């Protein structure tokens, strides 16, 4: 095992941050479809904030990606 190998392992482990982001996105979109299927008229009202929530949750996955990229290319 060389230090180079640990770098790859670390970068791979850092992508586990996407688990949380994935769960969050599932919750957001699942609840959106639940709400819209109960009250279809409310769809346009939720759509904007659906994407804002999507972006905010995705940000945490992006932090994990940032750490993976830093391990791979910067350190």
């Amino acid at each position, binding site marked *: 095992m060389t230090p180079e190998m640990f770098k790859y392992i670390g970068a791979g482990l850092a992508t586990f941050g996407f688990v949380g982001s994935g769960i969050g996105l599932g919750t957001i979109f699942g609840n959106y479809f639940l709400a819209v299927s109960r009250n279809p008229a409310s769809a346009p009202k939720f759509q*904007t904030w659906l994407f804002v929530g999507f972006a905010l949750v995705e940000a945490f996955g992006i932090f994990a990606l940032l750490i993976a990229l830093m391990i791979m290319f910067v350190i």
Partner: protein
Amino acid sequence: MAEKSGDGEKSAFDLMHQFDITPLAGLENTPLAFVTNSAFFMILTVAVIAVLMVVLTLSAKVVPGRGQTISEMIFDFGFGMVDDILGKKGRSFVTFLLSIFLFVFVANILGMMPYSFTVFSHISLTAFMAVIIFLMVIYVGVSRHGLKWFGIFAPAGVPGWLLPLIVVIEIISFFMRPLTHSLRLFANLTAGHIVLKVIGTFAAGAGATSLLTILGGLFLTPVLFALSALEYLVAYLQAYIFTLLAAVYLAEAIEPHH
């Protein structure tokens, strides 16, 4: 990032090669060498938008024709989004936000063409745009509300003992905004194009080395079609989200609710 993968490591497919910035072919040793493929595609994007809008509105009438309807749809989209988030007060930001949306969207669509260059797969450009928006938010907030605007860091209704913690968290999340704002666009486009490249290499370039690779290539070709469709969706969605977040940040500057 892109240049590190090229040297040293020898891999079967050069995934990062598509993101290399090089002077255009034929311009390498001329004074025009600053026109890289990135710069060229940015100019092309602006030219496409300008020509499209001029052609569509060439014969503007009260009763719109086919072309004018398309251009009016684009403007309705911008006004609808701004009215939703900024309210009537934010009408002056429509041109700014619609320009951002059209630039990102058309650049992404042009980047999906084979042999083209995806401008927003470089964090330098996305970070530049995100920092401009970030500074603009601070400028708009301070110029409209004075130093009182910084009260957004202390939300109303927070118990006193929790306030120092909340203020610190709010300040950190405020300064994280340009980072996530730029990384989202960059990461989505880069990752999407790498996936396309991987699947495309398998589907088309697997070669007739064995029966397994031929079957795998045949199986992966429909997957490539589906992924391309997904990438077009991502191209639109990320442009929309980039603009939407800029609007949401501006909404806080125009009307801080604390």
